[in-house]
């Protein structure tokens, strides 16, 4: 790792990092308020008139299934505080923030530098190419967990402002771990593609297309059973923090086997970074566009 480059990248990222961290903290803080209002006011009021199973059917039947899938709430009991609070970790908004961060970083780190022409300045200095990748990896090792822990920070601050009964935040650390692995997996995919490209926007388009396709496959696999067996192709399938938070369950079924979700996501991340390291060290670096 090059300390000089590491500090410069962190300096460049300080404002986007603060912005993303603030948004994640704010969202999870608000989600505590939403959880409190639903579990203590809205749901009890509804349950006075209809039983929970009927409510569940009304909400999640037919087109409501899509809503259930997006919330990742296959096994979530909306009347339970801990269950609804865990939805805050699988909600599309924090997922999107993490995705934008991971894709933006991966695309900027290699193809973005080549496109801007600053990679030429970097690689004309006596720094090995592999150090450029490992330094960027070290930056990700700082920034991605920082962002993920901001989710827990938001939940913690939210529960101070809006105390929830019988809530233990320690299990939510498992959700943070999965969020870190999920962001690293997307980052690894982006680095791999970025190491082959010379246009940041083209890399972003390709990576976003691949991740969007995986997301849609995972979503459709929850709606239609015939597509269910294909869900493990999508990285989103392995990001189900409710299981880890609520049941301390880390494995998911893949082709009849129980596979550790954390290991799969970190494996994808590792392969992505390793490919980027190899490809970037071997490739020609063309003149800036």
């Amino acid at each position, binding site marked *: 790792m*090059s*300390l*000089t*480059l590491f500090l*410069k990248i962190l300096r*460049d990222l300080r404002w986007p990092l603060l912005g993303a961290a603030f948004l994640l903290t704010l969202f999870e803080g608000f989600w505590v308020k939403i959880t409190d209002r639903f579990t203590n006011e809205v749901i009890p009021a509804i349950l006075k008139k209809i039983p929970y199973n009927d409510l569940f059917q009304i909400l999640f039947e037919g087109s409501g299934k899509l809503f259930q899938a997006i919330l990742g709430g296959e096994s979530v009991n909306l009347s339970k505080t801990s269950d609804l609070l865990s939805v805050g970790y699988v909600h599309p908004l924090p997922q999107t923030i993490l995705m934008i961060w991971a894709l933006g970083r991966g695309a900027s780190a290699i193809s973005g530098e080549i496109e*801007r*022409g*600053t990679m*030429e*300045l*970097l*690689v*004309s*200095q*006596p*720094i*090995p190419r592999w150090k450029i990748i490992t330094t960027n990896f070290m930056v990700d090792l700082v920034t991605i967990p920082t962002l993920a822990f901001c989710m827990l920070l938001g939940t913690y601050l939210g529960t101070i402002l809006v105390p929830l009964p019988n809530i233990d935040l320690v299990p939510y650390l498992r959700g943070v771990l999965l969020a870190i692995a999920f962001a690293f997996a997307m980052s690894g995919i982006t680095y791999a593609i970025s190491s082959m490209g010379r246009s940041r926007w083209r890399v972003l388009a390709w990576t976003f297309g691949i991740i969007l396709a995986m997301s849609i496959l995972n979503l459709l696999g929850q709606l239609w059973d015939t597509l269910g067996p294909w869900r493990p192709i999508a990285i989103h399938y392995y990001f189900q923090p409710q299981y880890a938070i609520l049941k301390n369950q880390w494995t998911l079924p893949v082709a009849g086997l129980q596979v550790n979700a954390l290991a799969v996501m970190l494996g994808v991340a590792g392969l992505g970074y390793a490919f980027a390291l190899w490809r970037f060290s*071997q490739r*020609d*670096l063309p*003149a*800036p566009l």
Partner: protein
Amino acid sequence: MPPTPLVHATGLTKDYGHFRALDHLDLTIPPGEVFGLLGPNGSGKSTAIRIMLGMLRPSAGTAQIQGHDCWNDSVAVRKLVSYLPGELRLYDNLTGIQLLNFLAGLRGQPIAGDVEKLSKRFNIDIARPLSQLSSGMKRKIALMAVILARTPLAILDEPTNTLDPTMRDELLDQIREARDRGQTILFSSHVLHEVEAVCHRVGILRLGKLVHLQSLDDIRARRRVKVQFQKEPTAPLPPRVIAERNQLNWLLYIDGELQPTLEWLANNQVNELSIEPEGLSRIYQRYHANDTEVVSS
């Protein structure tokens, strides 16, 4: 015994698919020499430079700097080289001094020399953000980084691009000072009089091939004879004379003594005759501005 070359390229070739950007370049540059690499856009200058910096892997041949292979041992090479790119792109979110410190940090050595003194000489405020500087000012900052690195070899790709005339003169002075310190300079340019002013030797590239290699001293001694004959000469040309023929109008390029050529001319019927120093510009034009038949004795 000739000095061990600092730059040594043998059969250096680069292909992009079916397109050959550099074609079997053989080049040696001894330590302390200022070498000018000339050629229009697309002639292979930047490709050769990028191979030497380890940015491109050669398709064939090798390039070495102080015995280090430019691809396999590129970090060792880049410790010996500082580089000013032709298409300059800097980190615009940094100030001049932050960029200089950043680049020195990547080299793992503090900035050598007197930054303040150099910035005054270049008439530039290094505390200003690069985003607020003109392209010429940015080039001055990048030049400062090259000068301050004090590496054995400095590669300057079109260094005077976007510089004002005063700064161009200052840059040429800096190159002379670097030369006097014993630094080797590889200088690529379109501006021939600048090359003539500072270089010891020049190489001219055309379509990826090195078509001309000569010392500036030889170029200064070289004569161009413009002659119109009454009828086609029959006697063979004297040694070390190259002729470009357009029917009865000939251009003769003479290396060395004029006497044998004058004697040869005296044996032919001549209508008009003029003799002048050839200069780098005319040599360059021979390769890049006309398609007349070129023959040599």
